[in-house]
């Protein structure tokens, strides 16, 4: 298991509210969170992709994670709600400002494309309406093989009982198809009281049809794979990234650290395990 993460805290312009959400997440034991900017293009007029506010402008002092002595890590994430294939522009420069990239396809065709070809980290499952399409095994398995994960968020289920039905129904139908692989559970919280602790979410995962182990991975290890997937995606698109490695060269192991960081990205190594089991 790795540290607990909540990769979806809704961005709001209210700085104080956002700070208190991040503080609550740290207090509940999350070590990494992502602030999510939602971009929903419409057919009528052209809109600009939002650009993320730097974390240090949003939060002056990062809160300490509960029971630990380190501060919380905050990432930026962009979610594109797609109703047309033109809404996702591969290699758009604006996307690179974000640590994580997610899409929420609203049609069968777009879902298939997102699973099979889009260079994204997360595919969001709608929890506020009845799914407009069925999950088919081929695209879902394709996404699992590519290391793309599916996200179910739970805060809508807390807000409203109709949404709760959609959340559970859509989550269960996803789990039936993907068998609990490559699923993350996140909050999409707008307020501190919409957040729940990592163990609560693990238990909630059982309602969505996940097993004990899968549910816990959905807030820890699988999220870690997402973050690593994002790192490799960002560096693979033509930008060379260099990382500091230790000077002492006495490592005789099969995976020397310097090589591990640049040639075989950590995410790839982590993901190799996924399909075999």
């Amino acid at each position, binding site marked *: 298991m790795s540290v607990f993460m909540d990769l979806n805290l809704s961005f709001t312009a209210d700085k104080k509210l956002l700070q208190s959400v991040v503080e609550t997440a740290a207090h509940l034991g999350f070590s990494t969170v992502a602030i999510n900017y939602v971009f929903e293009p419409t057919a009528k007029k052209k809109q600009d992709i939002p650009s993320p506010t730097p974390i240090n402008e949003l939060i002056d002092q990062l809160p300490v994670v509960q029971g630990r*002595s380190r501060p919380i890590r905050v990432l930026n994430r962009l979610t594109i709600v797609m109703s047309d294939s033109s809404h996702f522009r591969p290699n758009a420069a604006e996307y690179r400002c974000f640590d994580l990239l997610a899409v929420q396809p609203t049609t069968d065709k777009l879902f298939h494309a997102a699973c099979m070809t889009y260079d994204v980290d997360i595919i969001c499952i709608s929890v506020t309406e009845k799914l407009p399409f069925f999950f088919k095994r081929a695209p879902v398995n394709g996404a699992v093989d590519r290391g793309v994960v599916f996200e179910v968020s739970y805060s809508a289920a807390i807000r409203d009982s109709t949404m709760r039905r959609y959340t559970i129904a859509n989550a269960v139908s996803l789990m039936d198809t993907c068998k609990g692989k490559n699923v993350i559970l996140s909050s999409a919280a707008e307020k501190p009281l919409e957040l729940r602790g990592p163990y609560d979410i693990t238990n909630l995962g059982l309602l969505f049809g996940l097993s004990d182990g899968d549910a816990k991975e959905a807030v820890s290890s699988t999220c870690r794979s997402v973050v690593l997937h994002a790192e490799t995606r960002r560096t693979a698109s033509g930008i060379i990234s260099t990382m500091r490695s230790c000077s002492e060269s006495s490592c005789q192991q099969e995976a020397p650290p310097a090589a591990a960081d640049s040639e075989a990205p950590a995410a790839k190594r982590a993901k190799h395990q996924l399909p075999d089991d």
Partner: protein
Amino acid sequence: MSVDLDQTPRSLLVCDRSSFLNEKNRISSQVEQLHFNYKVSLLLPECSSAPSHLDAVFNSFNSFYLIRNMPIYELLDKHFLKTAVYQGSVYGVSYRTRIDEDNCVALMPNGHLSLSLDKDSFELLGVEGKPSRFNHRTTCRYVVCVDLTDSSMAPGGRGYQRLLTGLRSRLQLKTDFLLSHHPGGGASLQDLLSRYDWSEHRPDVSSHTLTDLSCPALQSCDLQSCDPHSLLEWIGAVDAHISCENSSSSFLSSLVCPEPKTTVSRALSVSVCGLLLPQDVHRLIQQIRYYLEQPRLESWVSLTVHGFVDSPVSWRGNEHGVLRGGENFYSLLIFHDQTYQLHLATGAHDTCPP
């Protein structure tokens, strides 16, 4: 739905009944093998203040030391090995780290160093280890265990050098660390302490008196007298100050004291918190036996010892983990005729206690 909502994760409870006079009793090894104890609590029925010899034990629990942000390679320091590890027993466990999330470290009294590491750290360290029992789909946690008293781990040896370079220049693992030493105490650790930000802590003793407590009528060795779960529930209720005065029809709670029951007019509950040594627990048990030799109104005493939730090891150095809760504790019920009942409990995936 594919998952049964009625299921709960595994839990284990081992019930031992024997006598201190029986040669086959393993009580001392069972006490010794749980290395990292967080809390000891004692319940003395029909007693309003602890007799001086028990009090003396509570107040003489070994001090322990907190070192902030200590690099783990310091545990391989030549001088530290010579003055602390080879002489007596060191008890060390990382503090403010969580076993299901972070890298955790434990130094056991037998000189074994156990590191529970996530995949990235394990690969950086480059020392042989094995996958953790707690992995699910992917292997993302590994356990590295080395014997610091082994000849290959002697300073200068190959294994020693490899681990030292790994911890010093590749992994650079740092954590807050709790340390205690038997029998040397702080003196044996002074050299290490002096190099870092450290503080000494006395175990925290608290006690309070309970009056008119209904308690199960415990008969010494009658094996079927009381169901172990309801007995433990009752001890837990007393410890948490939960009232058992309910009827089965009450709205709020139907928790009742197990039958057959009696009422004791007063009882004393004492608890000690900190990093507590098994040797001190053992001393306490000896004093309780001595206490029970004198004629009393109630002829039993209950002692509960909780292990650290986030320790990488539980009994016998076996791997320990947390799924939802990392309970590893034992509860000992001692009777005046030297018989005892011992309950050892662990959660989720831990191996069976000894």
